[in-house]
């Protein structure tokens, strides 16, 4: 006599996943998207395209780009300076974002603020996060004009939303016994934040900030190109879209890659040190 609560697949093997509606919807969505992608390739307009020469020229361009990188419109000092400009844009957005996010996330943590307040802050933050960074930049560009101000504001907005979520979750992990002990002493709310919450979460906050800095560097490059924010992204845009100088594009790409690689190395170290479980 077999227990009826064992679920089996059609071929009789025992199921270990509960096949719920969400899974099924997801699976069907993927199937439909795959079919649409394949079908849409058949309907493209291939009139002007000669596949042979297209591949050859692309290969040639890539070859020039990555095997013969060189600077022509910039000198090395100028290129480095522009990388620093991009890093500064990212840095500015991250630091200001972290400070604002810190105070907002105190209001978003259920163990530190009334439920009503946490709800409002969370909805606010979710809305900000739902809009892509580029869109925020364009929205701020209405008031500030396209340029670094709009780019920093846009990046700032997204950084705040991202960090509030991360910070407030870290705050909620703080042992509630610590908070209780401090309250029982007669400590006020700021004392509890400074002496109970901050020491317990400080290293987490720092590594989240660094992770966001890494993301912001990438965004800052894109903003330089797309929103005229300056920095190395703008030079990349000029080299590729204006001068068609493949060698310079290659050089700039390498420069960006090196910086991104360094940031990645540092942040991996941070993650290993402070979030050992998530890097496995």
């Amino acid at each position, binding site marked *: 006599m077999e227990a009826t609560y064992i679920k089996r697949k059609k071929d009789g093997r025992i199921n270990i996943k509960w096949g719920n509606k969400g899974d099924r919807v997801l699976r069907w969505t993927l199937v439909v998207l795959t079919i649409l992608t394949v079908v849409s390739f058949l309907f493209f307009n291939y009139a002007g395209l000669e596949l042979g020469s297209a591949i050859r020229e692309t290969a040639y361009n890539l070859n020039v780009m990555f095997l013969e990188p060189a600077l022509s419109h910039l000198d090395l000092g100028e290129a480095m300076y522009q990388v620093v400009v991009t890093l500064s844009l990212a840095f500015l957005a991250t630091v200001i974002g972290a400070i604002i996010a810190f105070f907002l996330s105190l209001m978003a943590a259920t163990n530190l603020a009334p439920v009503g307040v946490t709800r409002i802050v969370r909805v606010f933050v979710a809305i900000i996060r739902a809009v892509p960074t580029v869109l925020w930049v364009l929205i701020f560009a209405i008031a500030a004009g396209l340029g670094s101000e709009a780019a920093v504001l846009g990046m700032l907005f997204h950084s705040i939303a991202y960090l509030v979520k991360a910070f407030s979750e870290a705050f909620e992990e703080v042992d509630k016994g610590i908070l209780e002990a*401090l309250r029982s*002493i007669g400590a*006020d709310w700021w*004392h509890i934040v400074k*002496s109970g919450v901050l020491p317990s979460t400080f290293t987490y906050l720092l590594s989240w900030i660094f992770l966001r800095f890494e993301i912001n560097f990438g965004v800052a490059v894109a903003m330089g190109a797309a929103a005229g924010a300056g920095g190395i992204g703008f030079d990349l845009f000029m080299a590729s879209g204006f001068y068609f100088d493949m060698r310079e594009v290659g050089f700039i790409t390498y420069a960006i890659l090196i910086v991104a690689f360094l940031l990645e190395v540092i942040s991996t170290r941070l993650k290993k040190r402070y979030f050992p479980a998530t890097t496995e």
Partner: protein
Amino acid sequence: MSLLKIDELEKSYTADKRILKDINFEIKAGEFVSIIGPSGAGKSTMLRCINRMVEFNDGKIIFNNHDVGSLNKKELRKLRTDIGMVFQHYNLVPRLTVIENVLHGRFGYKTTLQGLMGRYSEKEKEDAFRLLEKLGIHEHAYKRCDQLSGGQQQRVGICRALIQEPKLILCDEPIASLDPNSSKIIMDLLKSISKEMGITCLVNLHQVDVAQHYSDRIIGLNDGEIVFDGKGIELSVEQINKIYGTKAKDLITS
């Protein structure tokens, strides 16, 4: 003179269950009183009503001539400086040093700004070291708390309560996470604090024999009701059964 007087105290977290039912007792200054009872009887809740970490529903608590239930936020902070609290899990900030944790006990006396700047007077720091020395953990003063053993951490917790210069110390199962050796050290310390410094102690305990050995008086709690209130030697087997329910008797005799 009575330091603490509890009158017809009622507490329920939800509408359908009374956790504390008509609690009445009085504690004299300098007394060492244990509260015993099975887990879930309401011991922790009762302790937390006294410094209003938990809001009670009905009844009256008079501490040091103040009506605890009617205090506003500011007065409540002031009241809490007079009541130290010691916890089962110590509740120290693990990443801070021993001395920093002890000095947290002064927060009740500080303005927001003083607390944020971490400003302590030289006297406060000297007092902190004197207490650490008294409890025998002064050589660990600059260690992070998470490097200490349980017994040592509990001593830090007691120092933090003492530096408040409290009139009453509430201990919620202070030895429930400790080995017998450390337990004895902690109970001896609490006893000597109450004797030498004249500080009143109200201690939640699990173990009847420990309560009998250390307390001037024992209050037995069962399902939110006081079923015993008297000296340790007056506690008979029947009364222990009444406090812990018949199940406990079965466990002991079998």
